[in-house]
């Protein structure tokens, strides 16, 4: 191409790139040379990087990507920091094992640690049945209130969590309400009457002929566990029938059904699945949900 083909800017005497945008032309000033060198350095850097760091994806027959001589792995680094976290937690965790649950609750630091650990363990293991924050569901006790079947003290909660309810182990919380209907201990009429009576205990019903008849049935069959006044017994996991709290429901049909064929529901022995630290943390957390022993 001959010299006069070039488009030279009159003001600066510099060639332009020959491109024009709305009358604006770009000067073709030379780049500083070091700029070029930096570009070369980046190319060298890329090669160095391939050598040291994982870079190339797996080629057929290779199985994995090129590891690089530094053998760098983000996955290993994550595992390492998780280990570091574990050992950092181990210190507080060891303190949890040594201290009693009462001491844990009373100590500001241990309490906060146990609450945090307990909250996450609760979410993983307990919330499926008891609901987030221990809100409860029909058949699954609410843990945020002051009604406790097996006792709401710290030690009692710890025991219940560790050994479970109606499990095979010897320490497990255990009781069985007889199936008054299915096993034909009571007639259908007796069941209906005693159900009416039970509902009068917490003011759900006014006393009636049926409930008065039911009271006699109650005194013969139920007081051994639920107590003369129907206030329950935490040693046997017998619910208080005089309060507003109903595990399965308070309507007539549910109460009748429970007496006819009780559900006797169970809870796993978490001591068999979780370590002692976690169980203690759970006990503190569950206790703190309600903050009252009932």
């Amino acid at each position, binding site marked *: *191409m001959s*010299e006069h*083909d*070039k*488009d030279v800017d009159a003001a600066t005497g*510099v*060639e*332009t*790139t*020959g*491109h*024009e*945008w709305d009358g604006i*032309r770009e000067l*073709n*000033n*030379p*780049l*500083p*040379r*070091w*700029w*070029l060198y930096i570009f070369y350095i980046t190319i060298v850097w890329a090669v160095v990087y391939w050598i040291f760091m994982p870079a190339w994806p797996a080629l057929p027959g290779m199985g994995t990507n090129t590891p690089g001589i530094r053998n760098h792995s983000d996955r290993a680094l994550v595992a390492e920091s998780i280990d570091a976290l574990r050992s950092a937690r181990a210190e507080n965790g060891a303190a949890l094992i040594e201290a009693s649950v009462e001491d844990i*609750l*009373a100590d*500001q630091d241990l*309490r*906060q640690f146990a*609450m*945090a650990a307990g909250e996450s363990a609760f979410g993983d293991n307990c919330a499926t049945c008891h*609901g*987030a*924050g*221990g*809100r*409860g569901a029909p058949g699954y006790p*609410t843990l*945020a*209130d*002051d*009604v406790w079947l097996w006792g709401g003290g710290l030690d009692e909660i710890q025991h219940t969590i560790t050994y479970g309810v109606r499990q095979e182990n010897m320490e497990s919380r255990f009781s069985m309400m007889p199936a008054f209907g299915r096993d034909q201990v009571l007639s259908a009429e007796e069941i209906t009457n005693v159900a009416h009576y039970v509902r009068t205990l917490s003011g759900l019903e006014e006393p009636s002929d049926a409930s008065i008849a039911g009271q006699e049935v109650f005194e013969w069959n139920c007081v051994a566990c639920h107590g003369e006044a129907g206030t329950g017994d935490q040693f046997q996991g017998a619910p*208080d029938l005089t*309060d*507003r*709290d109903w595990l399965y429901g308070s309507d007539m049909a549910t109460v009748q059904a429970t007496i006819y064929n009780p559900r006797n529901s169970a809870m796993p022995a978490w001591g068999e699945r979780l370590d002692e630290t976690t169980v203690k943390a759970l006990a503190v957390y569950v*206790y*703190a*949900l*309600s*903050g*009252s022993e*009932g």
Partner: protein
Amino acid sequence: MTALKPTPPSDAQPMYKKREPVHPKLVSGKFRSFKFAFMALALAVYYGLPWIRWDRGPDAPDQAILFFADGKFYFGPIEIWPQEVYYITGILILSSLGLFLVTSLFGRVWCGYACPQTVWTDLYIAVERFFEGDRNKRIKLDRAPWTFNKIWRKVAKHAVWLLIAAATGGALVFYFHDAPSLAYNFFTGHAPTTAYVFVGILTFTTYSLAGTMREQVCTYLCPWPRIQAALTDEDALNVTYRWDRGEPRGPHKKSETWEGRGDCVDCNACVTACPMGIDIRNGAQLECIHCALCIDACDDIMKKVGRPTGLIAYDTDKNVELRAAGKPAQKFRLFRPRVIIYAVLISAITALMAYGLFTRSTFELNVLKDRSPSFVQLSDGRIQNGYAIKLVNKRIDPKNIRLEVTGIEGADVSLVGEEHGDLDVEIPGEGVTRFRMIIKIPENAVDGNDRLRIVAIDTETGEQDANFIPFSSPRRN
């Protein structure tokens, strides 16, 4: 876009340009002296600042200026937490406004005297001059073959440059760690890896930016010259060649008259003195960092030829034009609208930040109500809500905090794990302490969504932080 003939790179115009070495000649004069003095001051501040101590009590760092120590910034008595990082933003905004203000008052003095690039380049040139001599000797040495004399001078120069570079990087990391202990650990090999990495990076950047790239940093890399263009107007004080007086230029013999010609004797002293390698007589240029060394150079010549100094001087474009048109020059107007606007903005932001700093709290109360369950009814019929409480203590010393809950009669408030009803707690310094709060209220005192006010009171100082918290209950019909 219309495509003209594309121009392929020709032999005449290379694709890449080699750096043309600049060998500024040492000048003497008031600006040169001031620049050396300012360089000494700037370096002293940079190296010395991290060593100044500031007593903050036993458990806190005692370094006056410390950045990012546990995420916090310390400036003497002021301590800035990560969540208050907007103060740092404020300082940056103030810095740039300050730069604008100074620029509109005195021209581009930042570039000329204070910019680290300028200070360190000046220092590096001084080292170069020490080993290789002044301009002419350096040019000669560069052209000379590699004799022993050349080799030792070059090696010594680069060695000293590297030392300065390492010391520069070394000083920077002291701003981020306790200086005395870091200094000890650094040389015994126990400092954190980041310290070594940053010293390495800064050694490299200092050496290459001040040693080998120099004026190219200002010309190609730095955004400030571009911004500068927007800040300059015909009222701006710039290092200016007064062409009204200098032209027509030309060599001058002692015997000749000064009538009918300009004062510039075309001696090139201003060009050889220029660290940017430009000719100020071509007018205001992006490359010019306004270091005023050409003023010193020219004043020297003017004295020698017996003409008044100030052929090159701090002046405004407007005045040059006025004088060229035969009119008297104006006095420099200090109070121009832009100066006033910058000053007002700076004062306003400073006042705002100072107000924020002096009234900021030393602790914080955060309350989060349980969502699940939103409430429970207790066996005695009362309604219970649970809350997660966070008390943030921003001071080093522990605090005694009393919580008070008001708004509904008969509310029974307790903190789990504390004595029932005891709402006085001690919280450790520098951190977040969490509590679980339980509130029980008789059913007939609440209706659906009620509101309580919770106040945390520092029992010593009386400082308070209050929150409104909801209390959920079944709606009564």
